[in-house]
């Protein structure tokens, strides 16, 4: 109120600041509990989004790393010199479009690869160990793996091409199922939140029966009453969503700090191998903000729907 209040004879419960207080009394709504529920749900949903985004980014990185390489395997055959066949294969691969280089693994590298199975100091000459050639691609789109496979099969005795398709498929399946599980969890959390808002709205309606009746006798339309409740629940939703979303940002910061600080400690390599350097893309931040907005809107529309339904029941 701009108009100065005249001194009242009896003390008012609180000094009036506006001539338009909320028609639905805020304290009759189980506000704090609902804000807490919404905050927790938003926090968990946000973590799910972050998790899904990390897995998806990591999977994309794996795929592009692996997709930028193919391997030519040359098995020693009777009547051939593996070294000559390897040379042939390297020369052949280098001719292909999209290939930036082809390099045969040296004996030392091959020994190191086999070390976990065969132990140190293996004599490669005495074993029929296939030789590997790493073909790096600078333009995977221009590269035709089938043509290379055909050429290798034709010209290199004992040669075959592995484009890692099997691995990529497995990784894709794993990443996709993680993403789907994440989305499923997200949906369940949002449904649980909607249900708690419905309960809270119904409780608020029951607690404000007299207010609703007076509004009805003043000629209020259901739309008006629902709007009053909705405004209130929108505030609660925004508050809960902001708290949950804020906690998500804090959790991301803490996780990044821990992962960063873990470098060099045991286990850090494993984390990094799995998830890459822990980092959240801007899209994930965008999704988090969208989640907070969606939570507020969802809370408000749910309460509106619940109010209109119970108003219809009253009249």
């Amino acid at each position, binding site marked *: *109120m701009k108009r100065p209040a005249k001194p009242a004879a009896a003390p008012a419960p609180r000094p009036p600041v506006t001539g338009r*207080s909320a028609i639905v009394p805020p304290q009759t709504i189980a506000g704090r509990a609902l804000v807490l529920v919404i905050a927790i749900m938003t926090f968990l949903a946000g973590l799910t989004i972050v998790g899904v985004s990390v897995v998806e980014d990591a999977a994309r990185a794996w795929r592009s790393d692996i997709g930028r390489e193919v391997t030519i395997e040359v098995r020693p055959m009777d009547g051939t010199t593996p070294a000559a066949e390897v040379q042939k294969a390297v020369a052949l691969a280098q001719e292909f479009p999209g290939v930036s280089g082809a390099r045969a693994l040296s004996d030392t590298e091959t020994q190191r690869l086999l070390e976990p199975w065969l132990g140190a100091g293996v004599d490669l000459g005495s074993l029929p160990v296939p030789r590997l050639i790493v073909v790096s691609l600078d333009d995977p789109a221009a590269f035709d793996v089938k043509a290379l496979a055909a050429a290798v099969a034709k010209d290199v005795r004992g040669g075959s091409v592995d484009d890692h398709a099997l691995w990529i498929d497995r990784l894709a399946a794993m990443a996709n199922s993680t993403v789907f599980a994440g989305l499923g969890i997200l949906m369940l959390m949002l449904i649980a939140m909607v249900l708690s808002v419905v309960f809270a709205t119904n409780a608020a309606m029951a607690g404000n029966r007299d207010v609703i009746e007076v509004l009805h006798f003043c*000629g*209020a339309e259901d739309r008006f009453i629902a709007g009053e409740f909705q405004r209130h629940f929108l505030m609660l939703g925004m508050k809960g969503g902001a708290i949950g979303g804020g906690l998500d940002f804090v959790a991301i910061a803490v996780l990044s700090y821990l992962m960063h600080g873990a470098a060099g400690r045991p286990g850090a390599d494993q984390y990094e191998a799995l998830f890459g350097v822990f980092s959240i893309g801007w899209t994930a931040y965008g999704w988090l903000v969208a989640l907070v907005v969606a939570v507020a809107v969802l809370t408000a529309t749910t309460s509106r729907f619940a109010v209109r339904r119970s108003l219809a029941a009253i009249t």
Partner: protein
Amino acid sequence: MLSDLTFRIAPHSFQFLTGPSGAGKTTLLRLLFLALKPTRGRVTLFGSDTATIKAADMPALRRRIGVVFQEFRLLDHLTTYENVALPCRVLGQSESQYKADVVDLLDWVGLGDRKFVYPPVLSGGEKQRAAIARALITKPEFLLADEPTGNVDPTLARRLLRLFYELNRLGTAVVIATHDIGLMEQVDARRMVLTDGRLEIYE
């Protein structure tokens, strides 16, 4: 509770509804402001039968009716000013549209210095006046008041009666339920007397 009543409230008319306590005055008023539906018989308001009226049409009808409840029914979390302004807010008016009217009316009913006080600290008479102001603020076509002077002294009762009378002169049909004989004697108006659920009308 009520049986075999037939009457008509003419536009711009002024009448008292009286009778001993428990005679059914409040029930009759509740039928008139759409809080009750008759188990038998017909109540027609502004030309629409209340039995067949659609829920969506109720608000428009109720906006033409002002009600003063015996138990006031003020909202405790709103100030006197906000309580009186409530029907204007329901109509979608902005504060600048109704502020002057609300302040004038509060001054008229003697609540000018109680604008920003909450109902729990108002006296019975003050609550009553606030409830009356809330019913009058939108200048309804039809005003129903249940014992509107029950909690005020005779001087203020006369003042409030004059307020109802002024409103009637501006075109509102007024029904005042009361058993205050002194009040009724001040105005030469139609009297509807309810006894044991039956109605007699003295024009």
